[in-house]
């Protein structure tokens, strides 16, 4: 469970890459509740941590706001490379 | 019992857990181990280390109880207990000696006066350190100290604060 009451959503961060609680709530307000779409519209989970620290918090916000059970919210697939890796490292310069 | 909402155990709760506390007579004979471990957790070093099988546990998750008669007051349980939940109490005249783990710096020296803290960290008086088992001599890697204090504080004091200029 998380508390979303009595906090300013514009100053509450869901993701370290500048995605606020308000960004998520705005999309939810449009009636979009799919984590996959919310991810793409807000960019939560698309930055450097590759979703490690933000995607579950975003899922919790969706769960808290829509009443959808956490087990029904599918996590986006993790994809290679699972750590950000420099292009020249793959090229093995 | 609501020790889990407070984070400490009251003496009444402790009595309930241990069945009975050692008699005054027993407390005067020699030090006796008191486990303040009211919750079933998977942990057995106290039972394993006890040389006289005085620590009673039916299974690894059971709450440790002490057979006060079998307990010889060696303090090995205080030294080994991972939860720092074992203490020893010994009455001597109008004083009590409470043995407790002390994993903080500085470790007091024998003869040093220390501030006595109860189970919620309140200062309840002053006591004198009478025995120190330093970390390197402890069988559980934990320094153990014995502090002499007024007898009425024996069941309240569970930590000390060392204040040096």
């Amino acid at each position, binding site marked *: 469970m998380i508390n979303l009451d009595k906090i300013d959503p514009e100053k509450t961060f869901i993701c370290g890459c500048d995605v606020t609680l308000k960004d998520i709530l705005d999309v939810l307000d*449009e009636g*979009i509740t*799919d984590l*996959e*779409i919310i991810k*793409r*519209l807000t*960019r939560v989970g*698309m*930055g*450097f941590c*590759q979703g490690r620290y933000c995607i579950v918090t975003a899922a919790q916000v969706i769960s808290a706001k829509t009443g959808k059970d956490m087990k029904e919210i599918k996590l986006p697939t993790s*994809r*290679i*490379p699972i750590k*950000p*890796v*420099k*292009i*020249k490292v*793959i*090229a093995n*310069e | 019992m609501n020790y889990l909402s407070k984070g400490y155990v009251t003496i009444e709760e402790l009595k309930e857990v241990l069945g009975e506390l050692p008699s005054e007579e027993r407390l005067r004979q020699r030090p006796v181990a008191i486990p303040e471990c009211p919750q079933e957790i998977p942990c057995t070093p106290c039972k394993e280390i006890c040389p006289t099988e005085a620590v009673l546990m039916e299974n690894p998750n059971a709450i440790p109880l002490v057979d006060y008669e079998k307990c010889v007051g060696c303090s090995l349980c205080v030294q080994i207990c991972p939860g720092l939940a074992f203490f020893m109490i010994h009455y001597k005249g109008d004083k009590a000696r409470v043995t407790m783990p002390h994993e903080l710096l500085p470790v007091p020296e024998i003869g040093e006066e220390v501030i006595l803290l109860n189970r919620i960290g309140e200062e309840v008086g002053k006591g004198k350190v009478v025995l120190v088992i330093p970390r390197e001599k402890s069988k559980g890697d934990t320094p153990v100290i014995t502090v002499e204090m007024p007898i009425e504080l024996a069941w309240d004091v569970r930590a000390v604060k060392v204040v040096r200029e």
Partner: protein
Amino acid sequence: MSEVTIIGGGITGVALAYELAKRGYEVTVLERRFIGSGSTFRCGTGIRQQFGDEANIQVMKRSVELWKKYSEDFGFPFTQSGYLFLLYSEEEIEDFKNNIKLQNKFGVPTRLITPEEAKEIVPLLNIEDVLAASWNPTDGKADPFKATMAFAREAKELGAKIYEYTEVKDIVVENGEIKGVKTNKGFFSTGTVVNATNAWAKLINAMAEVPITIPIEPYKHQAIITQPMKSGQINPMVISFKHRDAYLTQTAHGGIVGGVGLEEHGYDLTPTYEFLKEVTKQFIQIIPALKDLRILRVWAGFYAKTPDSNPAIGRINEIDEYYIVAGFSGHGFMMAPVVAEGVADLITKGKTNLPFWWYDPYRFERGELRSKAIQMG
């Protein structure tokens, strides 16, 4: 009862729903997962008019006009940042000169430029072996997420119904007439079905027992996105056939998006290590400075390919009313607005002014393949 049921909630499906709803039709979109989940959200974002045949050039010219209009009307990002084809051989140059002539004929302002001019457009380019480049500043790119969601939103506002997580199980056709669509969420009765499922089109065609062969096959295409860098460093879509059909550009957010033409037939979408190695190897030849950027992820989507890389768009005469709008071979996103407009006209008026005859779904049956469309980014 819906007048038109569109199967497939990719950008083609939702843009068509919008166009039909705008024309006063009752429209339903059935999407197996979520909007955009098929290939739209996995696309490379590019929108170009640099094709090699008259039909595609005209169609894409209209598409760009619509992209511009809708991005302004609906408020999603679309920029005319150009397409830059790097040319490394005399043969390539000859081909492109012909294309440019054709493009110019229809008002697409493509021109052949020198390597130095190319470097002015993208200062990070390695022009060592580049002989020339084909440059059209009016090509562009759009945000597939925001664009698709905008069309869906507008369609819904006009009354279109969009059902997500609704998988079509069968299409009921009686005496050559469509009765409805069976799904995991129940039966949708309808008189018209549009198959806008692209990579899955043949499966839907089979459900309706479409009597002609429309060869659309799924091919896995992978792409990468890197960490963001300062905007404006690679504005156009940069393309090199020499480097295994590589394409890359910078997104509005700053990351480099792109891929190479490493194809795999089938429905598997697992990103591969082989691709990761190939794409990095090719990209650093084109833009060496990319070597210090970090790749955030690799993903895959489908190119729904036809033998001539042109889509199959049109009415299937044997079934009353069944339309195929699929097989975009990598061009579905860029074509979506114009396809939506054209198909809406086909459905509502029976004709379109655009040269959609080129995409005639019967051409395969007749063995009249088109000249292969430039299949790229």
